[in-house]
């Protein structure tokens, strides 16, 4: 007989071990499946659209993050539950007053040009490189009042005040460590070295044929002995979504990510014997989509009208029928995978009668054609599925007497119109970056009403919300922040400044022989140093 207490204890310690050392867990998992990592092989995958340059910081577009995260690394990386895990920092500590963060760096790390990686590279990357280049990093790193290099492999940052989400900014996608010896004292954006990125990652840049492919090779001096397992990674540029589908289906490429494959093609890959569809790996970004409502316009600034729209739209229909299960119906302004999501938060339920009742209450009576009010919806020009969404919204809103005229534009035109507040309704999706202070506040606080895309472009303003976000930002205790964000969610849902629709899951499709693809909360943005082809 087994002592039940022992089993329980064993299980608990196993869980604790798993959380602390997921790399080990990976190997265990692999062994459990009877598959030991195997050296060799070329992974051919895709990249859409083609990035302009591959230096993180100089460019932070989606495709750049996917490819360059194999070349560069951050100090930490994040588990699916957004716990920090060691990367270039082998450990870290936070002082008693929660203002000083000390990182102990991995020894024996080399840049791809053979130079050693030191604490100076970390200081330079944070205080100069990203501080100058990247808007998000600048917003957070400006809080740093003091930097101390303790020795070549130890560095401390002191903040002006406690900032609980600080560590989330050290993922490779937010703050990739750049080589000081190449960039220091130069014009970062125009440095000729941008053509051949130099990082510490498991793969080094080999060649880039524009419009064709990007090729990376295994870095033999990588700091983890025996890794990476793959010999090469090739990112093919395939502009047409149907061509991408065929390339994946025929095995000419073995991995797709983000929106490479249209949602309506995903069910097919779920049934194919040689491919696997993974719907996790975007927890860190947590893309949340909504209908953005320009609140400078008369009827649109009435909360009853916005609530009516929310009642008129079936979020489950959007997630299941338009996105074919590659999205989840939103339940709150804070995405369900991120910290501080309130599982009890509820958006107005799908109920067209409630919608018409609200419109009646506003005095918007239907005319002879059944139209109560007319609005324009600027379609998000990011592909077929977003066009379908706009068509669905037009029909759903017409059901309750809101007549929608669709406006179309291209990506450049859309950003310009969003930034200049030249729209009535539009669809948008925004990353939440793991913490509401980093990725949610910017959309709602009134100090961020700017003529720039991805600020508070809708013009929503509520002093109470401003105060709560400020408090949550200054609050060092996680539990207290959770309490504040609970209030934030309740108040935002009451105000409905935007009509939240779905959380995008961005499915990853890969060849079944390819192992360890999605293990982090950043999914395909991992370094891939442990990815391998099973025999």
């Amino acid at each position, binding site marked *: 007989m087994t002592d039940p207490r022992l089993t329980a204890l064993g299980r608990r310690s196993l869980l604790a071990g798993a959380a602390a050392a997921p790399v080990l867990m990976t190997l265990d998992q692999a062994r459990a499946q009877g598959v030991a990592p195997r050296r060799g092989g070329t992974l051919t995958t895709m990249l859409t659209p083609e990035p302009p340059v591959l230096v993180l910081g100089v460019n932070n577009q989606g495709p750049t993050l996917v490819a360059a995260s194999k070349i560069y690394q951050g100090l930490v990386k994040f588990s699916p539950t957004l716990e920090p895990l060691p990367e270039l920092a082998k450990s870290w500590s936070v002082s008693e007053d929660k203002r000083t963060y000390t990182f102990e760096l991995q020894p024996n790390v080399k840049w791809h040009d053979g130079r050693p990686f030191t604490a100076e590279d970390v200081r330079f990357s944070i205080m100069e490189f990203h501080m100058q280049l990247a808007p998000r990093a600048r917003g957070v790193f400006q809080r740093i009042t003091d930097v101390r290099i303790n020795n070549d492999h130890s560095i401390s940052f002191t903040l002006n005040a406690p900032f609980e989400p600080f560590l989330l900014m050290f993922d490779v996608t937010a703050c990739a460590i750049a080589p000081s010896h190449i960039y220091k004292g130069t014009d970062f954006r125009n440095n000729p070295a941008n053509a051949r990125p130099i990082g510490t990652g498991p793969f080094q840049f080999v060649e880039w044929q524009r419009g064709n492919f990007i090729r990376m090779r295994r870095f033999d001096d990588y700091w983890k002995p025996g890794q990476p397992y793959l010999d090469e990674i*090739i990112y*093919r540029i395939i502009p047409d979504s149907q061509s991408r589908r065929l390339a994946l289906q025929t095995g000419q490429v073995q991995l797709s990510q983000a929106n490479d494959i249209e949602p309506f093609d995903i069910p097919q890959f779920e049934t194919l014997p040689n491919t696997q569809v993974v719907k996790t790996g975007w927890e860190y970004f947590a893309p949340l989509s909504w209908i953005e409502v320009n609140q400078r316009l008369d009827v649109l600034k009435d909360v009853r009208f916005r609530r009516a729209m929310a009642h008129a739209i079936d979020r489950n229909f959007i997630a299941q029928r338009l996105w074919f299960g590659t999205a989840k119906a939103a339940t709150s302004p804070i995405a369900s995978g991120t910290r501080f999501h309130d599982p009890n938060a509820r958006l107005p339920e799908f109920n067209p009668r409630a919608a018409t009742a609200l419109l009646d209450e506003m005095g918007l009576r239907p005319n002879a054609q059944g139209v109560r009010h007319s609005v324009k919806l600027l379609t998000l020009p990011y592909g077929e599925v977003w066009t379908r969404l706009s068509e669905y919204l037009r029909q759903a809103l017409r059901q309750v007497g809101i007549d929608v005229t669709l406006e179309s534009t291209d990506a450049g035109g859309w950003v310009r119109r969003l930034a200049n507040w030249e729209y009535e309704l539009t669809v948008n999706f925004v990353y939440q970056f793991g913490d509401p202070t980093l990725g949610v506040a910017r959309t709602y606080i009134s100090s961020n009403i700017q003529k720039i895309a991805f600020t508070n472009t809708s013009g929503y303003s509520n002093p109470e919300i401003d105060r709560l976000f400020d408090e949550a930002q200054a609050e060092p205790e996680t539990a207290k922040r959770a309490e504040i964000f609970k209030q934030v969610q309740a108040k935002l849902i009451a105000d409905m400044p935007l009509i939240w629709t779905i959380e995008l899951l961005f499915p990853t499709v890969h060849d079944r022989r390819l192992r360890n693809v999605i293990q982090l909360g950043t999914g395909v943005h991992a370094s891939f140093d442990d990815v391998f082809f099973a025999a």
Partner: protein
Amino acid sequence: MGAERLLRFLAQRLVKAAIVVLAIVVFQFVLIRLAPGDPASVIAGQSGAADAEFMAQLRAQFGLDRPMHEQLWIYVKGILTLDLGFSHRQQLPVATLIWDRLPATLLLTGAAFLFAISAGVALGVAAARRVGRPADSVITVIALTFYATPIFWVGLLLVLIFSVWLEWLPSFGMYTVGADLTGLAYALDVGRHLILPAITLGLFFLAIYARLARASMLEVADQDFVRTAHAKGVPEGRIIRAHVLRNALLPVITFAGIQAGQLVGGSILVETVFAWPGIGRLAFDALLQRDYAVLLGVFFCTAVMVVLFNLITDLLYAVIDPRVEVA
């Protein structure tokens, strides 16, 4: 035709051509700026985060903070010294970007052009010789079908048949990346990748050439000098070649001249469906990203080519039909 006269003709045409090209450059420069959005806002949109400092940095880097007339003057000055400018977005000179993509485009459009004109004229001649008979009907219907079918659909259908079902040919790309082939093996590899896109692009033009050749063959075949040749007892094959075809070729050449001018422009659709790394995609992406310098560079190259091929076509007329004189 005297050599002096030819030279004077050439000089005149080249001066006119230079003026036309320069006018096109200025016109397009202004036209592009009318599109809403600029490269900085596109990058901000794609990065998903921005602040005022970031936008100002990008606009300064791209030279967009200067007045429009100054930007235009800088660009025209560059063009006059054959400097196509610099793509700040891609951190590369525009000439490099275009030069890298040009061979792929020329290979694709050239192959499609040769396929279309040779097969098209052959089909047209065959149809004209059997006019009214089943073979003529079959060829005419086929030509009409290709003419009427959207090019991307033909492309996807060919991929389905030859790549997915039969697994004979690759469905995208220009060569096998990572195989590091050289010499003959490389040429064969490129050839295998070339077949589907070249046929897709060629089929549409093949239809046009077949219909053009057939119509003008029939028109010429009815004329008196052909009847005279028949009466003199000239063999049938020689009548077709020397009397009918040579005269029937003029409209075909006119059209080929127009098509040849577009060779450098590539084909956005075919390059998109087959992920062919050519100029068409470069221009299309540059348009979406508001990468002005690249877009203008491509426009400049295609404008020069169109003007050049018009000139060559005019000269070719004179060679094929001695009655036509350059003037």
